[in-house]
C-alpha cells in the first residue's frame, strides 16, 4: 500500500489511486490529494492465471465464427504473461475533464492499437508492489513528458498504467496465429483467426423454408398429401440441422 504523511501529525496514511480526499487514521484530519504535479505509477492485478487464460482462449476459439473445433485443435505453443504500459492523462480543458490514454510503447499486438485501460482494481505501483518473477514488464519507450507538453488544458493527473495481458501464439493446420487476452477482465483480442463458413447452415435454413412454402401450397391443392409431406420432412430438417450444428 502506498502511503503519504499526514500534514498535521505526520503519521503514514494509506492512499488509493481513486481517492481525492483521505482521512488520517490517527488524528482524523482530512487531506486533499493533489495529483496535478506528480506522475504516478499504477498497476492492475493479474486476475487470470495460465489455466484460466487458456480456458478463456478455448472459450473464444469455440465461438460460432471461428473454425469448427479450433478450441480443440489449436496448439498453444507460447503463453507469456506481460505487463503492458500506457499513459493516462486527466486534463482540465476549459473546465471540462478530458481523459487521454496514450501508448507508452509502439506495438503491433492485436487489440493494443485501440488503446484503453481494462477494467480493474488499479493499485499504486511502488516498492511495496511485488511482481512475480515470471511476469515480463514491458518498459515504456515513449516519454511521458513528450505527451505532457503537447496536450491541451491544465494537468489534473498523469500516470503510467501497467495492465496485465496474456500473449499467446497458437498453431492451427500449420499456420501460426496470435491472440492477446486482457488478464484483468478476460477480454480477447485477435486480428486474424481461422474462420468457418456459413454455407451448411444456410442450406438447412433455406431448404426448410422453400420445402414448407411448397408443401403449404400443395396442402391448399390437396390437404392430405401436403400434411403427409410435412410430417415426413420435419425429422429430416431437424436431424440435418442437429448434425450441422454439432459437426460444422
Amino acid at each position, binding site marked *: 500500500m502506498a502511503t503519504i504523511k499526514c500534514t498535521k501529525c505526520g503519521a503514514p496514511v494509506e492512499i488509493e489511486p481513486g481517492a481525492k480526499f483521505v482521512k488520517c487514521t490517527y488524528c482524523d484530519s482530512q487531506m486533499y490529494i493533489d495529483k496535478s504535479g506528480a506522475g504516478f505509477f499504477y498497476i492492475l492485478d493479474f486476475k487470470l492465471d495460465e489455466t484460466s487464460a487458456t480456458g478463456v482462449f478455448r472459450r473464444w476459439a469455440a465461438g460460432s465464427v471461428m473454425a469448427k473445433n479450433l*478450441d480443440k485443435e489449436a496448439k498453444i505453443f507460447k503463453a507469456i504473461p506481460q505487463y503492458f504500459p500506457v499513459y493516462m492523462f486527466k486534463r482540465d480543458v476549459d473546465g471540462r475533464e478530458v481523459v487521454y490514454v496514450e501508448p507508452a510503447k509502439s506495438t503491433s499486438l492485436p487489440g493494443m492499437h485501440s488503446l484503453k485501460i481494462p477494467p480493474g482494481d488499479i493499485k499504486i505501483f511502488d516498492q511495496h508492489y511485488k511482481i512475480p518473477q515470471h511476469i515480463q514488464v514491458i518498459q515504456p519507450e515513449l516519454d511521458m513528458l513528450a505527451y505532457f507538453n503537447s496536450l491541451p488544458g491544465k494537468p489534473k493527473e498523469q500516470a503510467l498504467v501497467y495492465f496485465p495481458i496474456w500473449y499467446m501464439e497458437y498453431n492451427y493446420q500449420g499456420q501460426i496465429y496470435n491472440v492477446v487476452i486482457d488478464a484483468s477482465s478476460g477480454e*480477447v483480442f485477435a486480428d486474424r483467426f481461422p474462420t468457418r463458413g456459413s454455407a451448411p447452415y444456410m442450406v438447412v435454413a433455406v431448404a426448410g423454408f422453400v420445402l414448407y412454402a411448397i408443401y403449404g401450397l400443395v396442402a391448399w391443392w390437396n390437404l392430405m398429401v401436403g400434411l403427409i409431406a410435412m410430417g415426413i420432412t420435419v425429422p429430416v430438417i431437424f436431424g440435418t440441422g442437429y448434425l450441422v450444428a454439432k459437426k460444422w
Partner: protein
Amino acid sequence: MGDISLGISCPSCGGALKVEEGAKSVSCNYCNALIWLEGDEGIHTIMFANMVDRNKAIWLVQEWFRKGLKARDLKTAGAITEIFPLYLPFWRLNARAAGWVCGYRERQKYDSQGRPAGVEREYMERMVFRDFDWTYLACDPGDIGVKRLRNLYGQVIPANVTEVPTFEVTTSKTDALNMGIQNVQQMALQSANVQHITFQKIHVIPRQFMLVYYPVWLVRYKYQERVYFATIDGVLGKVIAGRAPGDPLYQSLIMTGGSVGGGLAAAAGVYLALTGISDELGILAIVGGVVLLIASYLFFRHGSEVVEGDIEAKYKGFSLKKAGEISSAMGGLKI
C-alpha cells in the same frame, strides 16, 4: 512520494474541516464560517452493500445453468473455478426533462366494407415533464457484461471501507455528464410517444450527478476445458450477464420451427395474394415468414454460445423481440 497532500483546515480559525467529496461548500465545525471550495472538488460518491454471500452466489449460478437455451449438461458438467466479489463504478445522472413535442400519428382508414380508404393524420401535442435516471459504467467494459445499472437502490455504506476489489474510474466526468444529458433528452423524446415529430424543445436540468459503486460477484466456470463467466448483481441477487455454451439440439429445434413456420407463412401469403382475398395481407405474411426464418437462422448459426447482458454478440438468444428488431430493420413491420 512527493509533496502532494494538502491539509484541509479552516482559513479563519485553523480548525480541521471535514469535507465530503463532491461538496461545493463546507461549514466549519468550530467557528461556523461558511467556506467555498475551489479546485477539483471530486464527485459525490455512494457505495451499496453486497447482499449476496459466496454460497448464495454459487447457488445462483447453478440455477442459471438450468435456465434458457444453454447446454443441457451444463448443470452437471459446468464447474465453478473462481468466484469473487467486486465493486464496479457507475456514473449516475438524475435529471429533469421539461418541454414540448409536437407532431402527428398516421392511421389507416377503412370504409364501411372494411376496404382501405387512405391514411388519416392525427395531430399531437405532448408535454414532457418528469425525472429520468441514466447510468453508465465509469470504466472500460472489458468482458464483464455490465454497462448499465439494473437497479438504483441499495443499502448505502461508507465508500472506501471495504477490502473488496474496487474497479477504478477511468472515464471522464464531463464526458459522462454530457452523454447522460443527451441520453435523457432521447428518453424524454421517446416518452412523448409521437410517431412523426415536427417540432420539439426539451430542456434537461441535471439534478444530481454522482458515482455509484455497485457490488457484483464475478464467477468463472469451466465447461469442456473452456472458461466462461457470469456476473451476479449483489443487490438484486440474480445473474445479470454472462456467457454460456449453447446446445445443438436447441439450435436445430429453433431452426426447424423457424423454417417450418416461415415456409408455411410464406405459402399462406402466396395463397392470399393469388386468390385475391387481400394483396396486403399476403405480402405481410410473406415478409413475416422471411423474418421468422432470418431470426431462427441467426440463432441456429450463432447459438453455440449463449450470451446475456451488455455484451456485443452476433446473436443473443432467440426471442420474438429480436424478430421484431429484424423486421423493423427490413422495413418497419411490427410483429
